[in-house]
């Protein structure tokens, strides 16, 4: 397969956190890994569960792409530093970072425990802070600037009873925009994608009733659910040279769900 030159990703190096998916399913991270590899990037697929990352790499290698599976715990600064050093020593540069790691929550502030609140912020916000903290200097050293996409959520803009999660995903937007301003002069672009009702392994892993799925479909004005590929294509676009004047944006891939805000299962 010949990579398409117009993305400007041939020979570039990308780190994708949360790049594994359960089984052979296509999650947001896995889709982005596959699409970045198809565009010619070398992809470091990071997952806490190495086997899931290895499955993503096997899919990429089957298509003739270049990728490596690694396991780092991105909730610690030392592991994020080691992850970036790994990419730099392996491939000599770093150009792109796609942050997918995150966990959900349920309940209002009254119901939420302090321990779980702290855990949601730690996993959903600190990981993005720490990966970017170490990736940005490496991107600058690589000489061509860099591009970051952080995955936020429709819940940041249309909260529905997942309060800690909503707050953490709102923080992801503010963090991303602050980085876009702070490091724009360094040639670093930073954007968010917020998925709407997409049907991915993370969503269906714990089981979802057909009724809940139908409610989610109807939450989109297009009347259908999205999937990991929809998110992956948005991520590839924003990380590529096709978006080289776009920074600080919050791109909804939600079938228009945020336009009307109807009830939806969460």
């Amino acid at each position, binding site marked *: 397969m010949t990579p398409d030159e117009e993305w400007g990703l041939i020979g570039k190096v990308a780190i994708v956190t949360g790049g594994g998916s359960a089984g052979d399913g296509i999650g947001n991270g896995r889709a982005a890994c596959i699409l970045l590899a198809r565009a010619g990037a070398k992809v470091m697929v990071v997952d806490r569960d190495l086997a899931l990352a290895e499955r993503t790499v096997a899919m990429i290698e089957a298509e003739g792409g270049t990728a490596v599976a690694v396991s780092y715990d991105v909730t610690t600064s030392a592991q994020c530093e080691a992850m970036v050093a790994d990419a730099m020593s392996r491939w000599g540069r770093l150009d792109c970072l796609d942050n997918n790691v995150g966990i959900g929550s349920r309940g209002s502030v009254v119901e939420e425990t302090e321990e779980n609140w702290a855990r949601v912020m730690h996993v959903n916000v600190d990981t993005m802070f720490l990966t970017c903290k170490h990736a940005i200097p490496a991107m600058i050293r690589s000489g061509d600037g860099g591009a970051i996409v952080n995955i936020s959520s429709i819940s940041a803009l249309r909260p529905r009873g997942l309060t800690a999660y909503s707050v953490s995903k709102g923080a992801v937007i503010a963090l991303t925009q602050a980085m876009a301003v702070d490091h724009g002069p360094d040639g670093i672009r930073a954007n968010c994608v917020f998925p*709407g009702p997409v049907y991915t392994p993370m969503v269906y892993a714990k089981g979802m009733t057909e009724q809940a799925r139908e409610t989610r479909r109807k939450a989109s004005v297009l009347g259908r659910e999205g999937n990991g590929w929809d998110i992956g294509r948005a991520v590839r676009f924003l990380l590529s040279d096709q978006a080289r004047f776009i920074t600080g944006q919050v791109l909804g891939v939600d079938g228009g769900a945020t336009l009307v805000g109807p009830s939806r299962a969460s």
Partner: protein
Amino acid sequence: MGRLNGKIILISGGARGQGAAEARRCVAEGARVVIGDLLDDAGNALAAELNGAAVYVHQDVTKEADWDAALQAAEAMGGLHGLINNAGIYQPKRLMDTDAELFERHMRVNQLGCFLGMKAVVPLMEKSGGGSIVNISSTAGLRGSPGAIAYSATKWALRGMTKAAAVDLAPRKIRVNSVHPGPIDTDMLKVRTAEENEQRLQFVPMKRMGTADEIASLVVYLLSDESGYVTGAEVAIDGGSTL
């Protein structure tokens, strides 16, 4: 393989500047285009350059009959899958220097023109299996933009109409999104001096102006099936200047 293979795209104000860049990119991605504009010489020259993949139609976007003519050209090509509402005027004046005539002229070209375009394309797009409309607004449609009240009013209107139209047209499988260019290096900026344009760059985190081709890249993404789950979105392409 082109990302717009087999698609037919109508571009208003497509004869020069950003519109022409969009026309060239759409064709490079495998689409055929109908170029509407008031500038017949430039439009015909561009259509000739695009060698069989483009036709030019004379189009005043404030006239429904001209939209009908553009739609006939698209139908003759075989259908319609995309519309870029690109035509617009920019005559920046402060509130106290803006008269009713200038205000109305902006409303007619920028706002009414966009509305008539969205309305006109629906039947043919629906017949063609759905489509994607991209409305070219501005960063002046995202914030308080100095010294251009009439322009700002219409660009905010485009942003709002985009969202309303996205809801109305979703059942017809037509997506509608808005693009908000910031400082872009085209003839439009010649209303300011070079020093003034230089000074504006201080406030752009990326420290440069964008190019018409960069706008075209965003438009291609929004027209293509890659963005099939994106509707009602607004995307600024401004190097971070609205942050």
